[in-house]
């Protein structure tokens, strides 16, 4: 193909994406297509393949398990989508959900980002209109892969915008299988991020395009992209801070232009007005500290424009300098005073804890245990970077180098996006997702530029080019290489070796991504799978067993108390009212549950009575060795409970700073409600051959309290592998 004289490096991407494409291009050769047409055909078919690849790579979970919703939050999204498709948009918007946060309830329409649900519902309604009577669950399951495929298209156009079509194609291919993105977009992972990454990248692409062209229509497009992003995910705050930061950098580096002015003003003002239509966001754009940077930059833009105009009017530079000083000082002063007054009067809300915890990784640990308790909010370990990015981690700096070498408005943007998001990815594991598109794009630049350089080197070495066009297109750069090559005879071999190396790396990347996807990111976490003694697959379906039991065999108005992790699942699958759920908007309420779990039974009984609790659900892994159970989460319950109710003290549950459940555990630990509920009658059970009764396989110890008596609760149901245990709260005994 190189011999064919194609000037672009796309063939490299083609080799990587699919080798049989080569053959197809050869067969097309006989049709005598023009080079340009050939290139277009190649590009379209590569993109088409990448589009399909991005979709099917995410179907591992469906093949391994089934078409089901994964994890925790997606169950809420699924439940709301179901509601939306059944009851319509207005009902959805005004939905007061009494099934969660009992007795407070939750105004669903006002406390969620509806983008995902509306998207899925629209797809569903469209399919139904086209007479495809699919179940809404299938739509929800496949929404994430579908949008991941769309993201590859956006990545292509973005790459094309900041570098060239080659980089775009490589970026599309890289992002299609990048584990950092797949981790949150496999089939069934029906979460906000599924559509949000698409929206994020689309907004950035359109904005960069708007800055590049200075066209109102692109800016308008980016405003709508921003609106979609705001409707879909709280991560929009990243856009509304990154874009002003980018504009500010452009202003400082003297890259202010009319194009930038048009793009930013249109995008900001329209985007802000549109975003206000989302009830959950409301007036935050003008009232919250997190959004003030955008406002400030917007005002600064006006000052710049004004100064520009004045400079144009005044021909005296000295006078202008004075004017400049006065204007800038007064603008900063006025802005500062406005911000100060706004903050002091409470009109502008201060930064939220989540925002702080992003800027200061240790903040959450000290102040907001509920954020710190979530595993995906932990600071990222190096291994997860390696796991999620693989070779991109090395390509990223190389890409940065290329970007700096060819600095433009667009490359400045991608550099800033890459660097800031990589910082956030280091702060929180889940934000690796946000950095992934940037990392893929920058790495794609590195790959594309390297391959392009190497191939042009190879091509110019060919003394007898098959088509004369190669040299014609080759430009002065390649001819200069010819002279260079003559002095360095091993250049060609070196280039070939390097190319082979690049392909080896890329193929390793593809293998790694497939492996990670199939092994690590395709488990629904509702259904647990393990290997039996004979290598057979054992399925632990205890969660659904318990939830379905609740759904079928408890009164419809029963209230279930559990740790907040399981709240969404209980409401979605068990269809019962819960006290707290994954929304975690009310820390006190969660702390009350934490307190009940960590109190003695009679104290807990009073709390449960006051909350009208009928059933208590705990997750226990002692029989199966499932480690993310409630005992292992227990210290967080103590911490969160103790954060609001000082009667709960963490040291009471520890022995010499150590958390244990065996004989050496603290007396409070051995008798608190959580311990009792998890280990009730566990002491009679032999879990492992050759071990004493009551041997906890998750923690590898024999439990310390085998004689547990329950006074106010009774066992209502325990699943077949003991993973979920449900207790009934007895009504109070009659007082004589």
């Amino acid at each position, binding site marked *: 193909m190189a011999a064919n004289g194609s000037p672009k490096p796309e063939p490299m991407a083609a080799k990587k994406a699919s080798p049989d494409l080569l053959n197809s291009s050869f067969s097309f050769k006989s049709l005598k297509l023009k080079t340009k047409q050939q290139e277009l055909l190649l590009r379209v078919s590569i993109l088409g393949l990448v589009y399909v690849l991005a979709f099917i790579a995410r179907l591992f979970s469906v093949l391994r398990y089934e078409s089901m919703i994964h994890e925790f939050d997606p169950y809420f999204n699924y439940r709301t989508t179901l509601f939306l498709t059944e009851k319509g948009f207005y009902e959805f918007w005004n939905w007061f959900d009494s099934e969660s946060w009992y007795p407070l309830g939750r105004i669903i329409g006002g406390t969620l980002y509806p983008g995902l649900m509306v998207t899925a519902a629209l797809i569903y309604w469209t399919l139904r209109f086209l007479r495809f009577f699919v179940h809404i669950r299938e739509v929800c399951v496949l929404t994430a892969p579908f949008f991941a495929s769309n993201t590859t298209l956006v990545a292509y156009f973005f790459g094309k915008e900041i570098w060239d079509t080659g980089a775009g194609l490589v970026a599309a291919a890289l992002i299609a299988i990048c584990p950092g993105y797949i981790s949150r977009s496999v089939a069934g992972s029906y979460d906000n991020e599924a559509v949000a990454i698409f929206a994020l990248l689309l907004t950035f692409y359109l904005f960069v395009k708007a800055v590049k062209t200075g066209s109102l229509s692109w800016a308008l497009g980016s405003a709508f992209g921003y609106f979609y992003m705001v409707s879909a995910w709280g991560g929009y705050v990243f856009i509304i801070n990154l874009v002003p930061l980018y504009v500010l950098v452009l202003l400082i580096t003297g890259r202010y232009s009319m194009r930038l002015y048009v793009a930013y003003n249109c995008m900001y003002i329209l985007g802000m007005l549109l975003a206000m239509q989302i009830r959950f966001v409301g007036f935050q754009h003008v009232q919250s500290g997190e959004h003030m940077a955008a406002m400030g930059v917007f005002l600064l833009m006006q000052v710049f424009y004004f100064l520009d105009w004045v400079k144009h009017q005044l021909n005296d530079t000295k006078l202008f300098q004075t004017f400049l000083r006065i204007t800038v000082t007064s603008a900063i002063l006025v802005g500062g005073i406005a911000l100060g007054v706004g903050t002091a009067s409470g009109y502008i809300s201060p930064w939220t804890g989540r925002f702080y915890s992003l800027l200061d990784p240790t903040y959450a640990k000290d102040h907001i245990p509920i954020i710190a308790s979530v595993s995906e909010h932990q600071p990222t370990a190096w291994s997860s970077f390696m796991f999620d990015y693989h070779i991109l981690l090395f390509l990223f700096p190389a890409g940065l180098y290329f970007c700096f070498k060819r600095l433009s408005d667009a490359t400045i943007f991608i550099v800033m996006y890459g660097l800031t998001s990589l910082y956030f990815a280091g702060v929180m594991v889940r934000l690796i997702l946000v950095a992934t598109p940037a990392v893929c794009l920058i790495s794609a630049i590195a790959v594309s530029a390297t391959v392009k350089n190497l191939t042009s080197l190879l091509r110019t070495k060919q003394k007898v080019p098959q088509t004369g066009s190669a040299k014609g297109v080759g430009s002065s750069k390649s001819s200069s290489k010819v002279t260079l090559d003559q002095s360095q005879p091993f250049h060609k071999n070196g280039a070939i070796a390097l190319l082979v190396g690049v392909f080896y790396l890329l193929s390793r990347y593809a293998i790694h991504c497939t492996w990670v996807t199939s092994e690590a990111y395709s488990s629904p976490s509702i259904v647990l799978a393990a290997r039996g003694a004979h290598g057979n697959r054992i399925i632990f379906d205890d969660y659904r067993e318990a939830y379905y039991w609740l759904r079928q065999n408890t009164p419809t108005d029963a209230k279930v108390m559990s740790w907040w992790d399981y709240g969404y699942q209980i409401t979605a699958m068990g269809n019962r009212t819960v006290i707290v759920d994954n929304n975690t908007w009310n820390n006190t309420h969660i702390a009350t549950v934490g307190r009940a779990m960590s109190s003695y039974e009679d104290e807990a009984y009073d709390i449960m009575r006051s909350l009208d609790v009928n059933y208590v659900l705990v997750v226990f892994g002692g029989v199966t060795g499932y480690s993310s159970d409630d005992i292992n989460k227990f210290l967080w319950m103590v911490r969160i409970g103790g954060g609001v109710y000082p009667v709960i003290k963490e040291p009471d549950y520890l022995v010499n700073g150590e958390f244990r459940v065996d004989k050496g555990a603290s007396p409070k630990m051995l008798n608190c409600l959580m311990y009792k509920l998890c280990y009730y009658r566990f002491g009679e059970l032999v879990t492992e051959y050759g071990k004493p009764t009551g041997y906890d396989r998750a923690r590898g110890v024999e439990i310390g309290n085998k004689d547990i008596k329950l006074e106010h609760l009774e066992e*209502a149901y325990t699943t077949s592998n003991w993973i979920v245990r449900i207790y009934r709260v007895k009504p109070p005994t009659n007082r004589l």
Partner: protein
Amino acid sequence: MAARIWIFSVAVALFLSFSSAQDLQIVNAERRIDLSSHIVKAFLTLKVENIGKDPAADMLLAFPPTQIKHLSMVQAMAITGKKKKKTYLPLDVKPTEQPDAPNDTGYFLVSFATPLTLGETVTLEVLYILTHSLEPFPSEIAQSESQLVYYRDSAVILSPYHIKQQTTFFKTPSARVESFTSVDPANRAGKEIKYGPYEDRASYSYAPVIVHFENNSPFAVVEELVREIEISHWGSLQITENYRLTHGGARHKGVFSRVDYQSRRSISGSSSFNALLAVLPPKVNSVYYRDDIGNISTSHLRTGFKKSELEFEPRYPLFGGWRATFIIGYRVPLEDYLFEAPDGRRYLNFTFGCPLVETIVNKLTIKVVLPEGSKDPSAVLPFTVNQDLQVKYSYLDIVGRTVVVLQKDNVVPTHNVPFQVYYTFKPIYMLAEPFMLVSAFFFVFVASLAYVHIDLNIVKK
């Protein structure tokens, strides 16, 4: 309840003088009532003689009102020949009303094959099936307790005719019988309780008895079953069955202990059940078993030439009063079930009833979804059901598919007999959907072709 029966029997006594219009008498009657599962099967052998002058074309079977509403099915056969040369001739049985029925007694009319003349006798074998007739007592039991039930009936057969000699046997599932009403002569031997023989009982005699015994057989009751049979002329029959299952026995009380359940199975939860068996057609494929929240992985399918067996477990064991809903779906090849009638119509020949063994279905709905474009549907069944027509939209449907809805209450496994649905269908309709798809793709390509070649710019470049 007991008091009501007493009143009833007193009332029956008042009607003893009531004489039947026909001059039939029952020479010998033997009744065997099988109480071993929760479906009560009664086998009645009657030797009927005409003592009147007029030939009798039919006879009445009487049931007390407590039974008539639980009566699922009545079948009668005439026996001719002796011992080994016995031949059975099915007789027509249909419910009927009698204007002067005492105490809401329900009747079924059995038509003889040939009318009986004076002195002629015929031997009839009657099978009737009662559902929901075992009343758990105590009505709530704990996990470790065994399930005890009451069965109420009469020691003598309720009949509008004089019965010269009769015996009744009750067969219980185990030898554990707490008590039974004694109507002399009555005795018990192992699993069998014998009432009788009683001589010369007048018409409408009634002697209420209560048998209190242990019955731990699975009381699997399907409260509602909707079976949808979708016919595709492309070669398969897709069956989707929506079950709402419950344990109809004594309600579970108090705790459910997993330790006891898994380590002491013999004494713990003996009345509960956790496995069910569905008998599916042979050549069944693409079987799935799921519920509202996903696939259920505990099922095994054994396919065979005569039948396939799907052994499956609900997500949790069912104790008294617990419920489970689930869906079973499967596909069978069309050629075994769809045929062409001589008059050119097509007909589906499929099995009625519920594939689960030993279950009662309180409400069964069978929906036969005919292909789009089918006309004049009609269903043929050996018993009466409610029939209705609906329209369903499925993939790529424009006018919708005609759905024949057959609905019947109180269905037992004996109802698993073939039924037919006839309809007319033009094969050309089969091509409608592929044509739509092809034309849609064609349109997309034409549109993109047009888009590439048309210059949409306002300003010429």
